[in-house]
């Protein structure tokens, strides 16, 4: 029995995934096993250790705020599953 309890439906909603009840049970069991393994991290002495987000020193990279060539409207829309009036089309959000 896992020490973890995931509210799988809440996590799925945050992730914008729709799970059937069977899928939810299945994924929750698998994730519990994986999280049990991750408890190895809790055993490490991490006091005073700085977190690493990038392995090599990469600092904020800036560039001049100047227009550069980019996609044309047609290129940007070329893969859109639905477009109308040269815009991406989405389901209605305002009644």
């Amino acid at each position, binding site marked *: 029995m896992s020490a973890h309890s995931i509210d799988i439906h809440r996590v799925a909603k945050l992730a914008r*995934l729709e799970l059937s009840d069977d899928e939810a049970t299945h994924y929750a069991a698998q994730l519990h096993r994986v999280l049990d*393994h991750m408890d190895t991290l809790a055993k490490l002495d991490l006091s005073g250790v700085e977190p690493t987000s990038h392995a090599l020193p990469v600092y904020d990279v800036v560039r001049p705020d100047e227009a550069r060539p980019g996609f044309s409207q047609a290129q940007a829309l*070329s893969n859109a599953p639905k477009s109308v009036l040269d815009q991406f089309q989405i389901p209605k959000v305002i009644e």
Partner: protein
Amino acid sequence: MSLTSLSLTELRQKLTTKEISAADLVRDVASAIEARNPVLGAYLTWDLDAALKEAETADVTQPLGGLPIAIKDNINVEGQPCTCGSKILAENYTAPYTATAIQNLRQAGAIPFGRLNMDEFAMGSSTENSALGVTRNPAALDRIPGGSSGGSASSVAGGIALAALGSDTGGSIRQPAALCGCVGMKPTYGRVSRFGLIAFASSLDQIGPITRSVADAALLTNHLCGFDPRDSTSLKESVPDFTAVLGRDIKGLRIGLPKEYFIDGLHPDVEASVRKGIAKLEALGAHIEEISLPHTEAGVATYYVLAPAEASANLARFDGVRYGHRSASANDLMEHYLKSRSEGFGPEVKRRILLGTYVLSSGYYDAYYLQAQKARTLIRDDFTKAFEKVDVIVSPTSPTPAHKLGELIGDPLQAYLEDVFTIPANLAGLPAISVPCGTIAHEGANLPVGLQFITKALDEATLFQAAHAFEVG
């Protein structure tokens, strides 16, 4: 004899002396694909006409002039598909731009030809997570080619690509190269631009070559690396000629064997092969010593917190609006997101998005994500200390030979644990290469074993020197 059995250097010779043309070579590779791909399943698509058109104008005096190179299906080439092995990009997506790595290869004269199968969004170590087909190991057709760059390794080892590009987030170049019996190299993080590589875990992803020899890998790496202002993690470092070190001996080179890599889970025959390889390095004059990377065991847990966390953010872009699969049955915007994503993503991708979302969610961030980032520091420090004593670290690439297709499906944790030897180099951003190290007789098949070499950041020259000496020695 098919041209596809020759090295890039040999083919360069034939091209420059006009014994063959670039178009001959492209046609030869295409015939090999047509003959063998129905069995191997390495390629998803290939556009012969487009490649022949590039071959017409190929400048064979360039360093890679006229050489067709196969591409993992997560690297954008304008006008070609780029599915990431996923249903979500198999429809409504044709690359509208070209990755910098591809531009660099083209600049050197190469022709990107063919799109290679992979685990969906590079998540997996067997290519079984592709939604678009099965890829087989040329050494044993009932076995996995490894992954996630399984199509790349299968095509190169199977003689239907001269060389290929892969991407490596936790071992996805080195492990399939090891299991199929070819060379796979991951450069230092930041060496090769990630612009145009569809992101899995941005702080770990790196493009690199899969080839049949170390010399071919060095040649390709020369033309993949370089600073790119379009990738904010790209390193402003000069790129030496990596082929210049090939042939140099390794007398006196200090090689460390991390004791934490020779563990219970290591298959005894794999260990025997690797020990034999180490004896060869010693016979070539290298100085071998045992070292310790004490936080190795935490690597898998660290990686499987950080990589899914980054993936859950990166894959949020697949919303069914701008590109990719869009559900036909949604009634409102929320349903549109839920259904488009749930219909488009496969099980392993869903699993990792869920895991990543969980470890980043309120109340769990400190316990998992921050903890893993700190563990990453310890793992990186292990290497820094080790490289004060040795020049190169050598280990097995994978603890086991290639599994049978289907063997590990349904046991994600076991599959994750097998990445134990390749993950640390990604977490520490180090260059690493897998080189063939013999085969083992296993359940009636002769299965390849890989030997992994790791060096400190930006020291690919020493990596190629050691790997090449081992390969030819």
